[in-house]
């Protein structure tokens, strides 16, 4: 194992980690807002990737241009999912936690079925985009441009999110609603509207991630499954309720995955991620930066 291999591993791990962070950001936001884990998160990613693919295939819109469109579309989708499904799931008096898990899990199955029905199970890829296939070489270390762009988007998204939550009225409304939904109703804030917007925002973030992923990843109805579990582990590792935690945890997950693959057979590389998660929560039961 040469120094070059190790540096390359760490660099790739870092890029991948930021991307995991970006995928997990929406999940973290939704959880932080209303203690709901969206088990259809991977499927949100899947439809974002499909949307990007079809905009490219039919209208030749490059993923870079369609990313805002896809994020906007996902915003609407997320809000609608909240209003039609999640709103009722959180109202459940009995077994609220279980109802949320299985309502969103059922939604995930339906979305996969619908994707298969309408888009067929074929594997699709965007062939020629502005960034696709380009790679930077810095002193023998290769940094693929799409992933680099994804990593930078992740950083930007987290910065914006941070200011959004802490510095804007809407962000404060989100925060206040999370802390005491009953009290905000008294000051005229409609809880459902705030939650719907929160879901929309979370979905928009995963929409952004999906649009960038579509540049370098294949799309098919089950594509979300590979990323969903990593996203859950990332959010939990960072600590529920902390958007910054998801960002930090994403980087850790990426780096751990890359280093595990250097030490163990690559087929076991996820074991490293799982071991780190268990180790952290056994020591700190609320994740790295969790408040819940």
């Amino acid at each position: 194992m040469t120094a070059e291999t190790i540096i390359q591993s760490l660099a790739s791990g870092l890029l991948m980690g930021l991307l995991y962070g970006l995928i997990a950001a929406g999940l973290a936001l939704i959880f932080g807002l209303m203690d709901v884990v969206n088990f259809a998160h991977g499927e949100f990613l899947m439809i974002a990737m499909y949307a990007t693919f079809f905009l490219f295939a039919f209208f030749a819109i490059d993923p870079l241009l369609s990313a805002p469109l896809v994020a906007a579309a996902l915003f609407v989708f997320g809000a609608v999912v909240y209003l039609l499904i999640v709103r009722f799931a959180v109202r459940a008096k009995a077994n609220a936690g279980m109802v949320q898990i299985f309502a969103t899990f059922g939604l995930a199955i339906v979305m996969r079925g619908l994707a298969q029905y309408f888009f067929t199970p074929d594997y699709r890829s965007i062939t020629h985009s502005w960034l696709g296939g380009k790679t930077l070489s810095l002193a023998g270390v290769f940094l693929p441009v799409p992933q680099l762009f994804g990593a930078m988007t992740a950083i930007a998204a987290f910065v914006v999110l941070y200011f959004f939550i802490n510095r804007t009225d809407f962000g404060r409304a989100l925060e206040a609603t999370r802390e005491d939904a009953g009290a905000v109703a008294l000051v005229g804030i409609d809880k459902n509207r705030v939650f719907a917007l929160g879901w929309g925002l979370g979905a928009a973030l995963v929409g952004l991630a999906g649009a960038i992923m579509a540049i370098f990843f294949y799309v098919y109805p089950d594509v979300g499954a590979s990323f969903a579990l990593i996203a859950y582990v990332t959010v939990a590792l960072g600590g529920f309720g902390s958007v910054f935690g998801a960002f930090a945890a994403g980087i850790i997950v990426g780096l751990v995955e890359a280093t595990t693959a250097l030490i163990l057979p690559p087929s076991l590389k996820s074991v490293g991620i799982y071991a780190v998660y268990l180790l952290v929560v056994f020591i700190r039961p609320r994740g790295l930066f969790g408040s819940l």
Partner: protein
Amino acid sequence: MSISRRDVLLGATASAALLPVAARAQTSEVVIGVIYPLSGSSAQIGVDAQKAFETAADIINKNYDFKLPLAKGEGLPGLGGAKVKLVFADHQADPQKGRAETERLITQEKVCAVIGTYQSAVAVTVSQTCERYQIPFLSADNSSPSLHRRGLKFYFRASPHDEMFSKAMFDFFDAMRKKGTKIETLSLFHEDTIFGTDSANAQTKLASERGYKIVADIKYRANSPSLTAEVQQLKAANADVLMPSSYTTDAILLVKTMAELGYKPKNIMAQDAGFSEKALYDAVGDKLEGVISRGSFSLDLAEKRPMVGIINEMFKARSGKDFNDYTSRQFMGLILMADAINRAKSTDGEKIREALAATDMPGDVTIMPWKRVKYDDKGQNNDADPVLLQYIGGKFVTIAPQEVAVSEAVWPMPSK
């Protein structure tokens, strides 16, 4: 099967159940069960397979002028012109569901034969179930060598398995070496499933027998979100030949990741699977100029046998795709099964089994480059010669073995 008399006489229910499934009345239809993943992550394979089987059924049931068994005339003449009817079942890549669906096909749909399954793990339970009901099972496209070594009487496989495929690759390497090409080191890249494991085992064994050095043996998790760490190790090893055993998803990601990390393998010799799928070449075909894949089918056979081209067009009209390594074997699977049923002149499982065992079909009446179809006592056809195909200028050309090759191999892979 070693069912003792005592076991059979254990109870009335047991012995009743062991009678051959109710003698089937002479019908105008012969029902054949086809079991594939029709939903879930490999649904695409199942959906394409449906089209291949429907094309074959169409050729059997209607009158076509091909030099292919059962093409001429309508239906099966041995059964008074009975038509072939297909019943599709979905096993969702789950061995348990495969078993349950096979039982349903046999007991409810009254199929007289079963064809499947794509995933080798499911073929294990499907063939086992067929054995219990004494219904012949034909492995159309499973390539795990362990399948025909389980002492099953009702198991048949016309196409090659991974050891035969891998042997063809090493024969090719040997031939290249004789010509003075330097091939010394190999990198294996395989997924952690039955397919990947069997393939890697066969390749490791052949490499040590024939004096090739394996410099990297990368086993990865199927459907990984990223393959960067894996590709780095391949890049560091930089073997003379990279030998991937991957399905479409991972093949796409592998090729993309190699380009991203600036790794241009000297040569790629692929164990089919993803490397024969249109989706891969649609996605990253420009990076695959000169890749070699093993296969059991080659479209340039159409030059010698025009019917291959015409049947391919018929398939394409249904599926929008050319025949590939899987769909061609699936097509042929039904023809072979129907041919045996026709010769058995019966839909009785044991009679069909006997007819299958007696199969001796010359290769030139098939759409495959095989010498002939003749099963050994384990149900394996050892005359199914694999071919090696090279992807040149946007299509596959046959480069080995000598008898069917249409051009010389471009070696090493052209570097762009």
